[in-house]
């Protein structure tokens, strides 16, 4: 079992427990949910704010989180049936990406255009968290409308990477990954359209899972690209992601694209502890040239460990993956251009009036969108509007859909040879804040290895594969499985994780610098 520290229960030690460990301690009443929640709120107050703070959170939900924790403690103290029926993760706090709507807290999508808006409804996943009585610590930072790979496109300033505060935490879900990496939360929810859970996981040394498309309800996740978006878990261990996935997964009648299948026992899969005889496929096109040497080394090391564990390593070729990025940057902006049309200042959020007459509805919409959206959002809306235009549709959106089919066929052929595929999650470790901000194409290339899974709807998991030799920063290893076979990711992921921990002498995150020394904290939280 993964431990980031000893079995201690002091506040500073509590936060280093995994969700599974916290669940055990809560069930055994070694600690109270209020203590656990308060410890994380204190950590947020200590490292998140200020000029050099991590800035993982856009909103901290102190009162409500403590109230839910207190309720769990009351139920446990009373004992009886109600205590028996408590969910295993009851009282284990969680952070939620601010793309997912919540009653009682702001939801901004990292954008100025939702200023002042409060959701009148909870996302389905949030309802499930509430039903499990998991205290919601707050809402985490992201690139505006999840558009970016660094959180630098957040309208509320970037999140910093807990490994190096001058580096990006990945994106779009940099806030969720950084919160978990910085021990501000044991668990978080992310959304992954082209890698927004997995790439931040890779560069922050955390675990992130993009479930099979349709495996987790999207109801209440503010849509970027409907056919690609998927909500998934962020954690420090593979088992923790499985535990959270088990809470949020399953069919939802409010999401027509949600799979009708009953959810597999993912937690059991994470506990199998054996991958003997499984076939693991290396995707020829997703490593080597264009990948940082330290990333490539850690990747090869993981292959060696999988082989040692009894897996058979095979090479597969996915020749159409080279078109994935191009096709993604047609489909995603096309859908986004339509999904973001609703933000017009008419019904909710920001409304900006034009400075001069005439005061027409078109001009109010225009002024609102000009002021409310950031550059990257505008860039993608323009791109998508163009790609869907009459006369261009077939050449752009139509062709991109064909590429999508080809990518699905590549996956089918690959999964005929292998049970699980493996690649580096991202081509590089965390880059410096500002480094790629002026070069959208370089930014987009970060997602080259994660995008194919979204294009085909297959599940993917990223776990820390060690530190790169050249910069000492975390490297992510990505596992991919066929649609509906998310359990395989947890089975293989947990085995690889334990082998890597043995090799590195403990969890990768244990070697992250102590933030309290780095953050010139002004205390308090947003």
């Amino acid at each position, binding site marked *: 079992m993964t431990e980031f520290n000893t079995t201690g229960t002091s506040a500073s030690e509590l936060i280093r427990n995994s969700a599974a460990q916290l669940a055990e301690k809560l069930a055994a009443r070694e600690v109270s949910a209020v203590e656990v929640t308060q410890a994380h709120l204190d950590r947020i107050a200590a490292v998140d704010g200020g000029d050099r703070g991590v800035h993982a959170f856009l909103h901290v939900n102190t009162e409500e989180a403590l109230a839910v924790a207190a309720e769990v403690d009351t139920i446990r103290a009373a004992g009886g049936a109600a205590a028996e029926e408590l969910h295993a993760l009851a009282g284990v706090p969680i952070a939620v990406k601010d793309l*997912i*709507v919540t009653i009682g807290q702001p*939801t901004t*999508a990292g954008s100025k255009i*939702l200023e002042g*808006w409060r*959701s*009148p*409804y909870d*996302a389905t996943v949030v309802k499930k968290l509430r039903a499990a009585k998991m205290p919601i610590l707050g809402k985490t930072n992201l690139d505006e409308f999840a558009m970016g790979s660094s959180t630098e496109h957040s309208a509320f300033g970037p999140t910093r990477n807990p490994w190096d505060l001058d580096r990006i935490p990945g994106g779009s879900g940099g806030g969720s990954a950084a919160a978990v990496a910085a021990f501000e939360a044991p668990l978080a929810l992310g959304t992954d359209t082209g890698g927004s859970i997995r790439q931040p996981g890779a560069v922050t040394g955390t675990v992130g899972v993009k479930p099979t498309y349709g495996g987790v309800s*999207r*109801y*209440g*996740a*503010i*849509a970027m*690209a*409907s*056919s690609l978006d998927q909500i998934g878990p962020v954690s420090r261990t593979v088992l923790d992601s499985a535990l959270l996935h088990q809470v949020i997964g399953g069919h939802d*009648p*409010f*999401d*027509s*694209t949600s799979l009708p299948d009953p959810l597999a026992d993912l937690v059991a899969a994470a506990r199998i502890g054996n991958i003997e005889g499984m076939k693991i496929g290396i995707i020829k096109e997703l490593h080597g040239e264009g990948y940082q040497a330290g990333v490539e080394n850690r990747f090869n090391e993981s292959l060696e460990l999988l082989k040692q564990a009894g897996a058979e390593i095979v090479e597969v070729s996915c020749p159409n993956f080279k078109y994935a990025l191009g096709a993604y940057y047609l489909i995603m902006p*096309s*859908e986004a*251009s*339509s999904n973001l*049309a*609703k*933000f*017009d200042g*008419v*019904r*909710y959020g920001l409304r900006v009036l034009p400075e001069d007459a005439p005061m027409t*509805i*078109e001009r109010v*919409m225009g002024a609102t969108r000009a002021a409310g959206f950031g550059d990257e959002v505008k860039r993608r809306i323009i791109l998508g*509007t163009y790609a*869907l*235009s*009459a006369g261009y*549709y077939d050449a752009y*959106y139509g062709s991109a859909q064909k590429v999508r089919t080809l990518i699905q066929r590549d996956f089918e052929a690959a999964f005929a040879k292998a049970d699980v595929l493996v690649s580096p999650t991202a081509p590089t470790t965390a880059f410096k804040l500002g480094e790629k901000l002026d070069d959208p194409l370089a930014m987009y290339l970060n997602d080259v290895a994660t995008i194919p899974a979204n294009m085909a709807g297959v599940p993917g998991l990223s776990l820390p594969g060690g530190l790169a030799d050249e910069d000492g920063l975390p490297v992510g290893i990505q596992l991919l499985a066929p649609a509906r076979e998310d359990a395989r990711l947890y089975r293989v992921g947990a085995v690889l994780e334990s082998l890597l921990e043995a090799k590195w002498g403990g969890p990768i995150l244990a070697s992250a610098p102590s933030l309290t020394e780095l953050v010139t904290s002004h205390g308090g939280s947003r």
Partner: protein
Amino acid sequence: MSDAILTFDEAMEKYDPVLGFEVHVELNTKTKMFSSAPNVFGDEPNTNVNEVDLGMPGVLPVLNKTAVESSIKIGLALNCKIAENCRFARKNYFYPDTPKNFQTSQYDEPIAYDGYLDIELSDGTVFRVEIERAHMEEDAGKLTHMGGSAGRIQGADYSLVDYNRAGVPLVEIVTKPIQGAGSRAPELAKAYVAAVREIVKNLGVSDARMERGNVRCDANVSLRPHGRERFGIRSETKNVNSLRAVEHAVRYEIQRHAAVLDSGEPVVQETRHWHEDTRTTTSGRAKSDADDYRYFPEPDLVPVVASREWVEELRATLPEPPAERRKRLQSDWGYSDLEFRDVVNAGVMDEIEETIAAGATASVARKWWMGEIVGRAKNADVDPGQLGVAPATIVELNKMVEDGKINNKMATEVLDGVLAGEGTPAEIVEKRGLAVVSDDGPLLEAIDAALAAQPDVANKIRGGKVQAIGAIVGGVMKATRGQADAGRVRELILEKLGVEG
């Protein structure tokens, strides 16, 4: 500035009209097309809405299965093929009545396609209108433009929006170009829309009330010189929302197009607004085929799969087709061919059926609708069903006459009172003091006086010439200022004179 027009006859002499219709039918499902909010007309604005209808961030649509069933039924009734697989698309455009700034609508994959509808014209001939498709979509909200001019968005001070209608399920029925109607084009237009309305009403899938916008018609008109194959440029007159208006709008557009073509100018491809008051159209928005709605398949919905078994199950539930229904009704009601055709042409078949269902006999229902209401509707320039006479009113009026409380003359007066909004028939009788004098005392006095005034007539009656009684009855009616029950007066006279009627 009003447009120049030719007379209809001149237009017909020179040009051949081609028509096309897009009829929007609002389905009467309990909930909306993609949300669980109630589909109810006439409630307080913005009360029948939830986060989905308002296009809140994060919401997703869920297709209403009953709406799909209703759409398939409409398709089957229009003799269409039903797609085994079809999808929705997004029609993207910015307008404040559309909460998402796109409309979720079927585009290139309609649920029903390639059908036809046989339309019986007033002279009994049957005209086949080919249906291109019937597709599902959602309605938009309702905008009310305040201040400014003529209730249009341009120049309004501000606009109010009611999203109760946003997301109401619609089926849009699109015809293929209708050629060969000639001078019967306006009549065909009206008859086609009436037929569609009748179908959806009989299917029970729509309340089919045009005055509430349950059935709305966009009428496309173009003209071409006789003998030319290529179509002329069309105009699309939007939201023509009564049967009479459909007829008038098509007639007007034919006359207007003819004048434009005669002047040597091209017809502008545009939408036109129909004005009921002036019975003219005015220019709306320029519309070209290049309007770019950036359609793409709706990624938040899965394809609609209509299995053949399901379609056949639904086919088995279809009510009798209108032509058969007409035959049955005519036979049930015992109307002659001519009587029945007049009823159909007057557009009161459904109304008569409802009146009979409310308790009237077939002949009473026909007497009222054809004898009283159709004429009044014509004078008021509305469809008879929209005049505001409820079947129950007719039953009530007729019962008053049969009970001798009022006579026929009074009954028409009461009907006018009902139409003027003075209240129920009973209230109007009371208010206007219209009760028939039924107390025999004052009648007997009046009869005595009338007999005394015309002794020779009284003698004729005594002598067996009963038909002479009219003069005495007339005298009594005059004396009672029409308030007496003529039948009772006659009985009393005969009784008094000891003659058998």
